[in-house]
C-alpha cells in the first residue's frame, strides 16, 4: 500500500490525471492478456524521461515496486500486479523522435505502437520488420522488454536483432545509454541485448534506437490447405528444399482452422482441409513474382486441398488478418486457455506437433498447435473449461507434459512470449541453478533493492 505521503509525492510529480489511485482504475491496470489477476496500488503516466528518472530515484528510496506497462498484451503475465506495486504506464511517451533514412535507423519513445512506427518508416521508404501478431496493438517498449518475435522471424529475426541502442532509467534514477547509431558496435559488454527481453526487471526503457532496412518493393502471400499435418510438413520441407527463404511460414492445425471458421466472417478453405500453411515472400517486384510462381510449383506436387495466391497488399491483408485472429479466436474452443509458445529445433517440429496433439488426446482436452513453423516456434494452447474440475486438472497435467516433451526434444519453454509469472515454475526444468544464480546477480547490479517488476521472469 502507498502511504498518504507517498501518494502526495506522486500526485505532485504526476499532476492531474497523470496519477490515479482510484480503486477501479487500479484494478484495470492489474492484469494483462494472461488474464492473471492483480491489484496495483496506483498508476502513474510519465510523459518524459526526466519524470521517469525522478520516479525511479524515489521508488528506490521508498522501496516501492514498479511495474512498467505498455498495452498489456503480454500473455505470460509479466505486467501483472500480483503483489501490488505501482504501475508505470508508458502510453503517454509515444513520440517518434526521428526516422533517418540515411543512417537507416529510427528513434522513438517506448509507448509508440509498433505498427504506427512501421507506417511512419514506410512513408520514408524504410522497413522495421518485427511483426508480432499484436503489431497493431502492442508497444515498442513492450516488444523490446519481451523480445517479441513474429511472423517474419524466419527471414528477419526477432526484436533483439533490430535494436541498436537504448536509453533506460535504472532504480535510483541513473540514466544509461547503451549501443548507439552504429550498425556494428562491439565496444564493451552488450548491455542492449541484456535489456532486450528483460521483462521490465532491470529498468525502464525510455528511448529506443532501431535498425531499419530499405522497404521491400513488393510482397506476396500464399495460403495452402492440406488433408493432414504430414502432408503439410512435407510441403514445408519442399519449400526450403527448393531453395526459397520465405519472409514468413505459418501453420494452422485442424483445431485452429475450426476456431477461425467460428470467428472470421468467412474462411477460404474447403472442407477436408485439416491443416494449412501460410507463406509470405518479399523483395523486388520481379523477384517476388518469380518466387511466387516457384513456390506454387513446389507446393503443387504436395497435394494441397486448395491454394490461394495473394499477389497484392489487399489480398495479403485478408490472409494475414486471419493469422492475427488466431489467438483470440481459440477461445471459441474453450473458455480458458493455457498458452505456450514452445520452440524446438527446426528439424523436429513434425515430431513435436504430433507429440503435443497426442498428449491432448490422451488427457481428454483440446490441444491446438499453430504458428511460426518456419523457425520452430510452435504455439501450443490447451483450451478447456476451468469451471469443470476434471478438465481443469487434465489441462494442467497436459501442459506440464507438453513442456516436458518440448524440453525432451531439445526445445525451450518460451520462444517469444517470455517467462513472466505464468512460466516461472517451469524455468528450472530448462535453465540450471548456476545460470539462474548468474541472472539474479546481474539483476542485483541493475536493481540492488529489487524494485523493478519483482518476482518475474527468472
Amino acid at each position, binding site marked *: 500500500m502507498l502511504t498518504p505521503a507517498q501518494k502526495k509525492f506522486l500526485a505532485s510529480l504526476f499532476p492531474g490525471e497523470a496519477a*490515479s489511485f482510484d480503486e477501479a482504475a487500479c484494478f484495470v491496470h492489474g492484469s494483462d492478456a494472461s488474464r492473471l489477476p492483480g491489484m496495483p496500488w496506483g498508476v502513474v503516466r510519465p510523459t518524459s524521461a526526466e519524470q521517469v528518472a525522478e520516479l525511479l530515484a524515489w521508488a528506490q528510496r521508498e522501496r516501492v515496486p514498479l511495474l512498467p506497462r505498455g498495452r498489456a498484451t503480454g500473455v505470460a503475465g509479466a505486467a501483472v500486479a500480483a503483489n501490488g506495486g505501482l504501475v508505470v504506464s508508458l502510453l503517454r511517451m509515444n513520440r517518434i523522435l526521428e526516422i533517418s533514412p540515411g543512417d537507416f535507423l529510427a528513434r522513438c519513445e517506448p509507448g509508440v505502437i509498433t505498427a504506427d512506427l512501421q507506417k511512419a518508416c514506410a512513408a520514408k521508404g524504410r522497413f522495421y520488420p518485427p511483426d508480432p501478431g499484436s503489431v497493431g496493438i502492442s508497444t515498442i517498449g513492450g516488444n523490446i522488454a519481451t523480445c517479441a518475435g513474429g511472423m517474419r522471424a524466419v527471414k528477419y529475426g526477432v526484436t533483439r536483432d533490430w535494436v541498436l541502442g537504448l536509453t533506460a532509467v535504472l532504480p535510483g534514477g541513473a540514466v544509461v545509454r547503451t549501443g548507439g547509431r552504429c550498425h556494428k558496435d562491439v565496444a564493451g559488454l552488450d548491455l542492449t541485448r541484456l535489456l532486450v527481453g528483460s521483462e521490465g526487471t532491470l529498468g525502464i526503457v525510455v528511448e529506443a534506437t532501431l535498425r531499419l532496412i530499405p522497404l521491400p518493393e513488393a510482397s506476396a502471400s500464399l495460403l495452402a490447405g492440406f488433408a493432414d499435418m504430414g502432408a503439410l510438413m512435407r510441403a514445408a520441407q519442399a519449400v526450403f528444399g527448393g531453395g526459397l527463404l520465405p519472409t514468413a511460414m505459418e501453420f494452422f492445425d485442424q483445431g485452429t482452422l475450426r476456431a477461425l471458421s467460428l470467428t472470421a466472417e468467412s474462411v477460404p478453405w474447403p472442407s477436408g482441409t485439416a491443416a494449412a500453411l501460410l507463406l509470405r515472400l518479399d523483395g523486388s517486384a520481379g523477384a517476388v513474382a518469380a518466387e511466387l510462381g516457384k513456390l506454387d510449383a513446389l507446393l503443387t506436387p504436395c497435394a494441397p486441398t486448395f491454394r490461394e495466391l495473394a499477389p497484392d497488399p489487399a489480398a495479403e491483408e485478408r490472409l494475414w488478418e486471419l493469422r492475427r485472429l488466431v489467438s483470440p479466436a481459440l477461445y471459441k474452443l474453450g473458455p480458458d486457455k493455457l498458452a505456450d509458445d514452445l520452440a524446438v529445433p527446426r528439424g523436429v517440429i513434425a515430431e513435436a506437433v504430433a507429440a503435443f496433439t497426442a498428449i491432448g488426446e490422451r488427457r481428454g482436452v483440446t490441444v491446438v498447435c499453430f504458428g511460426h513453423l518456419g523457425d520452430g516456434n510452435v504455439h501450443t494452447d490447451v483450451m478447456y473449461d476451468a469451471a469443470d474440475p476434471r478438465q481443469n486438472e487434465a489441462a494442467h497435467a497436459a501442459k506440464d507434459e507438453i513442456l516436458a516433451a518440448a524440453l525432451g526434444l531439445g526445445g525451450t519453454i518460451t520462444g517469444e512470449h517470455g517467462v513472466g509469472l505464468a512460466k516461472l515454475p517451469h524455468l528450472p526444468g530448462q535453465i540450471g541453478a548456476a545460470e539462474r544464480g548468474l541472472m539474479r546477480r546481474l539483476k542485483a547490479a541493475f536493481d540492488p533493492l529489487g524494485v523493478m517488476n519483482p518476482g518475474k521472469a527468472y
Partner: protein
Amino acid sequence: MTLAYHCLHEGERPKECVHCGRCLAACPLFSATNLEELAPRAKFQLARALESGAGGLSAGQVTELASRCLSCGRCEKACPEGLCAPDLIARLRSASPGWQALVWKNWIGRAGLLWPAGGMLAKLVPQALEKALTRVLPAPLDERAGLALHALRAMRAKSPVRPWLRVRRFDPCGKGTKAVLFAGCTAEHARPEWTRTAERLLRGAEYDLAPAPDFGCCGCTLGHAGCKAEQRAAQERNLAAWRAAGRPLLATFCATCRCGLRSYASVDLGWEPFEAEAWMKAVQPLSSLIGETEFSVIEEAAPARVHYHRPCHGAGGGQDEDLLRRMAGQRIGRASRDVCCGLGGVLQVAAPELGARVAADAWNFFAALPGEQVLTGCSGCVLQLASTRPEGVDVGHWLDAVARN
C-alpha cells in the same frame, strides 16, 4: 446477480473478454486520452470484477467508470468475441441506476422530449433548463453542465449552412414505390427544414410519399442510457406505426436513427414470420434512394471546401459520402473514416470534457479553414461538431446544403 452484458444474438455461452487488447486501438475515447481505464477492455474487466467480487469494487464505482463511453460501437467491430461496450453499459446502468441515468430520466421527463430536442428546450426556456441541470448535477460539476449546455445551444439557431446545391434533374427511380420518412427527434423538434428537404427529394424521385405515421424516438439513446422500458416502448410504437402504414419503405436521414431502427430486427418484438427481414429491407438511407439525381452548385453560396464526417453509427455512412462526393465534385476535402465526433449520449451529461477531447482529435483530422464546411448524415454528430467547431467553420447535415429550388 449475473449481468448478461453481451449481444446474445446466438449461441448459449455468454462470451467473455479475453484481454487481447484489440479494442484499444479502435476506441476513440482511449485514443484521445491514453487512459487505459476508459478503454473497452477495462469496461469488461470491471463488469466481470463486479460479478465475481474481485478487487472489492462497488457497483457505483464500476458503473461510474465503465459508463464513460461514447456509444460509438467501434469496439464491437474490433472485438473477436463480438463484445459490445454500449450494451454492457446499458445493462450496468439499468441494473444500478446511478446518478447519470437519473439525470437522464429527469431530463427526458422534464422536457417531455428527447435529448437532441434539448436544444429546442434551451431556446424556449434556457434558464429553466439551466436550473434543471444544476439541480440534478452535483455542485462541482457546474463546468460540465456548462459544456453540456454549450452543446445544446449549438442546436438552437437556424442552421449556419446556407444552401449551395440545387437539383438539376431528378432521377425518377422511386417509380411510385410507397415510402414514409422517419425524421427523428432532432429534425422533428429543432430542424424541421431537414424533413421538408427530404420530402422534396423523395417526391422528386417519384416515390409515393405518404404522410409520416405516428413515429416517436428510435429509442437508441434511451437504450444506451439504460432506460430499457422506455426504449422498448419506443420500439413498439414505431413498429406499430409502420405496420399501420402498410409496411412501406422507411427513409431515414440520420445514421444513429437508422442504426437504432435496424437493431429492432434482433429484438423480440413479436415479429411475424419474415417480418423482421422485411423491416431490415424497408429501413433505407435517404441518400441511397434518390438514384442518379443530379445537382448543380450555386457558386456564390458554396464553401471553398466541404469535408465529410462519417458517423460511427449505421452501415458506415458510405451512401451519404458517395452522394456528397457526387454533389460537391472538386470541392470535397477530407472524408473521415474512423474519427468519432465525441458526442456519446449520456457522456455529454456525465463528462462532456471527455467528448470535447475526442472532438479535438476529429478537428485535427479535418484541419478545416475558415469558410469551409463539415457536413455529415447524423443529427448527433451535427450537434457535437457544431458545438466544438473552430471559428469560421460551419457544420451541418448534408440536407442543409440542398436549396429549395
